[in-house]
Every structure is written in structure tokens, then in C-alpha cells.
């Protein structure tokens, strides 16, 4: 599979490479927050490979921010050649509202256009003083939970769905899941607007006993803030958090960067890039890269967004105005 993708990429390059070789080209990759460090490395890797293959110099500029905010910027006219966002819903919105790419964009690259994925885990303080092992522990009255607001943070939507999914599987029904998630959010003392903000609240402000977070963000926090001060706890069931990638057709066509933009994204599936994403704490889709990864990824049973009927349904049921999440807070208030 991977080899075929790579060959297709190379073929595309071979067809168009020589004609463009002379002029340097520039790509704009509009991405979300935690990929900053990873794409800095990948951009250098891709530039080297592209130069070697075609002789053309490519410079990739990066833009990072909250996933939804980035999607809105593209809708409002930010000329992104490629988008690499936190959840498919945001790219769906670009397709639906600005018609910059076809609605079936997610079928164009392997694995739902997701070259790497992550999952939702818990970050706890050293020694796990509150003995937090699984989702069930998060609704205990002595536990304070830090998680951002799913209405303003894409990452927090994965957290919320993972909690809901565990409860539905373990307790047996949507009603019980609603009850569980309501209790969980009653244990949340601070609702940050973004994932990085929540990490800061937990790690630096020392608020709460457990942070629900992306696995890669958990690894990063472990590495960046005082070695051994935090531990990652893998719950029994989590969700496969897929941050997909897509070429923004209309923009790339206008700028004449379609071929290089496609090669840039296909390159993410190459062995070198797969090894690179694993080093940055993302789970690579290639089984080989996963096996050889220096980072140890615990085995977790993962639900997918399909278990929630896809993003547009999950969005409408849970996160829209008056949806489940809003009702949780109206209920909590009464």
C-alpha cells in the first residue's frame, strides 16, 4: 500500500518536475496548534527530497493556531495550498462554505487522508497520587479534571467523545453516557478555550488532578516540563483522533502549486516521514514505522468518529447550540 502511494507520488513528480524545476516554489501549510514542532522537521525533509528529485527549491511556510480558527481563516481567504487540521469537520466546513475543495476530499489519500493519528489519554501528576486508572475514576468527588471547552477547541471534542464512547460501551446506553459525562464536567473547575491553554493550566498553574489530552501533547508535556513530574495513563477505551490533511484545490490551482502540494501530502506516508511523525509522538499509520518507533505507544482499544455517525452528526448532536454539551451545563446549573 505504502509503496504504491509513494510510486504514484514519484510518477506525478516525474511528469511535471522538469518543467517547473527552474523556479523556486512556496507552499503555505495551514495547520493546528500541536503540530508546530513536527512540521518544522517534515518541511525540511520534504524540501531536501523535492530538491533531489526535481532540482526545484521549495519553501514551506507554516501557520498554526486553533483548528477551527485556522479553518475560518482559510474560508475567509487565507491562501493555504494545503490544510492539515485537527479534525475532519473543519476541512468539511472549508469544502461546504468556501467550495475550495470537493466534498469527498477525504477519499483522496489513504486512511481517510490521515497519515498519522493520535488518541486521548490522561496526564496525571508524579506517582499518580489520586490513583486514576480509567474514565470511571474521573467522576469521583475527590478528583478535579482539566479539559478545554469542546465548543471552542477541536481537541476537546475528541476528549468529550472518548469519554462518551467509554461510558456508552461500559455502562450500556446513551442515557447512562450522558449522565456520566455530566458528572465528569461537574468535576471540571476551569474550562480553557484551547488545548494548549488547558495544558498550561494543568502543568504550570498546577490546577486539577488529571488532564485529558492528546497522546502526543501528553508526551510533549512530559518532555518539556520537568522530567518525571507527570505520568501518562492510558484508559481502557479511547478514540482514534484523526487529524486529516488535504490540498486546497482552488488555491493550489490558482498558484500553480497543485503538483508540489500533492507530493507534499503524499510524502507524509513515506517511510522517512512516518518515522519522523512517530518521533514527535504521533502514531504513524504504517505498521513498520509503529513497530520501530522509539516512542512507546500503549495498546488502547480505540473507537472512531464513525461510531458517532461521522463528524456532521456528532457536531449536530453534541456540540451545536442547544446540543448535549450545552444541556450538560444547563443541567449542572439547576
Amino acid at each position, binding site marked *: 500500500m505504502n509503496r504504491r502511494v509513494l510510486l504514484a507520488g514519484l510518477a506525478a513528480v516525474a511528469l511535471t518536475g522538469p518543467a517547473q524545476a527552474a523556479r523556486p516554489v512556496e507552499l503555505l501549510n495551514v495547520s493546528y496548534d500541536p503540530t508546530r514542532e513536527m512540521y518544522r522537521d517534515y518541511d525540511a525533509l520534504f524540501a531536501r527530497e523535492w530538491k533531489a528529485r526535481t532540482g526545484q527549491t521549495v519553501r514551506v511556510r507554516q501557520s498554526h493556531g*486553533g483548528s*477551527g*480558527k485556522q479553518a*475560518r481563516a482559510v474560508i475567509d481567504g487565507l491562501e493555504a495550498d494545503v490544510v492539515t487540521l485537527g479534525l475532519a469537520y473543519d476541512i468539511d*466546513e472549508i469544502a461546504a*462554505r468556501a467550495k475550495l475543495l470537493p466534498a469527498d476530499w477525504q477519499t483522496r489519500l489513504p486512511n481517510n487522508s490521515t497519515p498519522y493519528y493520535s488518541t486521548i489519554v490522561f496526564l496525571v501528576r508524579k506517582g499518580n497520587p489520586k490513583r486514576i486508572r480509567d474514565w470511571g475514576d474521573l467522576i469521583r468527588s475527590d478528583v478535579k479534571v482539566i479539559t478545554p*471547552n469542546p*465548543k*471552542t477547541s477541536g481537541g476537546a471534542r475528541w476528549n468529550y467523545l472518548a469519554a462518551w464512547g467509554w461510558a456508552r460501551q461500559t455502562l450500556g446506553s446513551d442515557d447512562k453516557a450522558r449522565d456520566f459525562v455530566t458528572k465528569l464536567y461537574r468535576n*471540571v*473547575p*476551569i*474550562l*480553557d*478555550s484551547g488545548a494548549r*491553554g488547558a495544558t498550561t493550566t494543568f502543568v*504550570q*498553574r*498546577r*490546577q486539577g488532578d488529571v488532564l485529558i489530552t492528546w497522546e502526543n501533547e501528553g508526551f510533549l508535556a512530559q518532555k518539556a516540563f520537568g522530567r518525571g513530574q507527570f505520568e501518562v495513563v492510558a484508559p481502557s477505551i479511547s478514540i482514534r483522533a484523526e487529524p486529516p490533511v488535504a490540498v486546497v484545490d482552488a488555491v493550489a490551482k490558482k498558484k500553480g502549486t497543485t503538483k508540489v502540494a500533492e507530493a507534499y501530502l503524499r510524502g507524509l506516508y513515506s517511510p522517512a516521514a512516518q518515522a519522523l511523525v512517530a518521533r514527535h509522538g504521533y502514531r504513524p499509520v504504517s505498521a513498520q514505522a509503529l513497530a520501530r518507533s522509539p516512542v512507546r505507544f500503549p495498546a488502547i482499544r480505540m473507537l472512531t468518529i464513525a461510531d458517532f455517525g461521522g463528524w456532521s452528526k456528532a457536531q449536530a448532536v453534541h*456540540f*451545536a*447550540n*442547544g446540543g448535549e454539551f*450545552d444541556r450538560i*451545563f*444547563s443541567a449542572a*446549573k439547576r
Partner: protein
Amino acid sequence: MLPGFGLTLGFSVAWLTIIILLPLSAVFLRTLGMGWDQFVATALSERALAAYRLSFGAALAAGVINLFAGLLVAWVLVRTDFPGKRLVSALVDLPFALPTAVAGIALTALYAPNGPVGALLEPVGIELAFNPAGVVIALIFVGLPFVVRTVEPVLADLGSDIEEAAESLGATKLQTFRRVVLPAVTPALLTGFALAFARGVGEYGSVIFIAGNMPFVSEIAPLLIVTQLEEYDYAGATAIATVMLCISFALLLVINLLQALARRRGG
């Protein structure tokens, strides 16, 4: 009539239209796109009402505190002389210049239960971060220079000779302050208050870090607007903005009237 009056008036009106009225009417137009029921459901929901109460209440409280603190600081800066006065004076302007997010992060680090100030207050049971008190603290910080800088020139203009004259006529310190100084600076004080208040209502960057952002408790109205945008609900966002604009305009109008009244009395 002044020479060039028509020209300057025309320019002023045109400028205000382009810079203020045009963007504001865009807000109203967006809102008109949604039906009345939808408007009520979004902009007048229980949660939105709680957010308005917090935003306007905290801005009002911070404005009142700044009114007193600002007057005192201005008085000290004008009437006294001490080494390092210029430095202190420059310090007052800092909240103007500091990116609000930096202010928010600094204040949170200070007042969070593990921060240097928060740790002192925690055993006594006082929490100033991640609740409405945190919002007020952030707004006091960003609002202070507005009061100091509007009152300062008026106090300087007033001169200490008037206070001395009052005193030589037998007025006590308190009488001098209440009968002589206060009436003269009241219009400026109200202006400073209005500016600090208006800034506080719209403030987002510094508040978001220290507020805790819990719906119904410590969620400010500007955050609710951002939440709507996150759902690609532009009409909902402008609906909340419209309500905020109307309340702000009404309150600023009242302050302006009070000011005119004070000026007539004091003048």
C-alpha cells in the same frame, strides 16, 4: 462661524461614518439575517444573560475601583515630587502597551492558588483566580491608565493655589477636597471611568486566562462570541455583539449625560 467649519464638520462626519458606523452597521446587518426567535434563543438565552451580567458587572466594579485608585494615583503624580516619579508615571501607561494576553498570563501566574499572591490567600479561603473576582482583577489592570491619564491634566491645570486659597479661607482638608477639587475633576473622572468601563466590557485577551470560563459562572460575553464563531455561526456571534453594543451605548450615553450635568454644576 469658524472658517472652514463646513469642511471640517463634513470631514468629521465622513470619517466617523467610515471608521465607526460602517463596521457597526455590518454587525447589525448580519444580525438581521436571523429570525427573531433565533435571535432570542441565541442572544437572550439564560447563558448569554449570565455572560452579560458578568461582563458588565465586572467592568462596572473594576471601573468604580479604578475611579478611586486612579484619582489617588493622579493626585500623587501631580501634587507631589519624589525621586523616580517619571518612572512611576511611565509605569502607569504600561497596561496600555502590554499585549493583553501577556497581562492575563502574568496575572494568572500571580493569583493562581500556586502563585506568590494566590498561595498567601488560599489558607484564608480567598480565591482570586478562576472565578469572577479574577475577571475584575484583570479589568482593574487594563482600566487604570484611562482614569489616571484623563484626570491628571485637569488636576495639573487646577493648580495647588486654589487648594491653598480654600485652606486660607478656613476650609478643612476634607472640605477643600469635596467642595473645590472634586467638582473640578468630576467630568474628567467620569470620562476616565467611561473609557475604563468600555474597555472592560470588550476585553477578551487578559480575562480569558484568569476567568476559568465556566458557563453561567465565569464566562464573559466576548468568549461567548468566540464560541459562536467556532461553530461557524456568524449570525449568532453578531447577535450577542448587537446586544452588547446596545447596552454599552445606553450606558455610555448615561455617563455622558452625568458628565454634562457635572460640568454645568462644577463649571
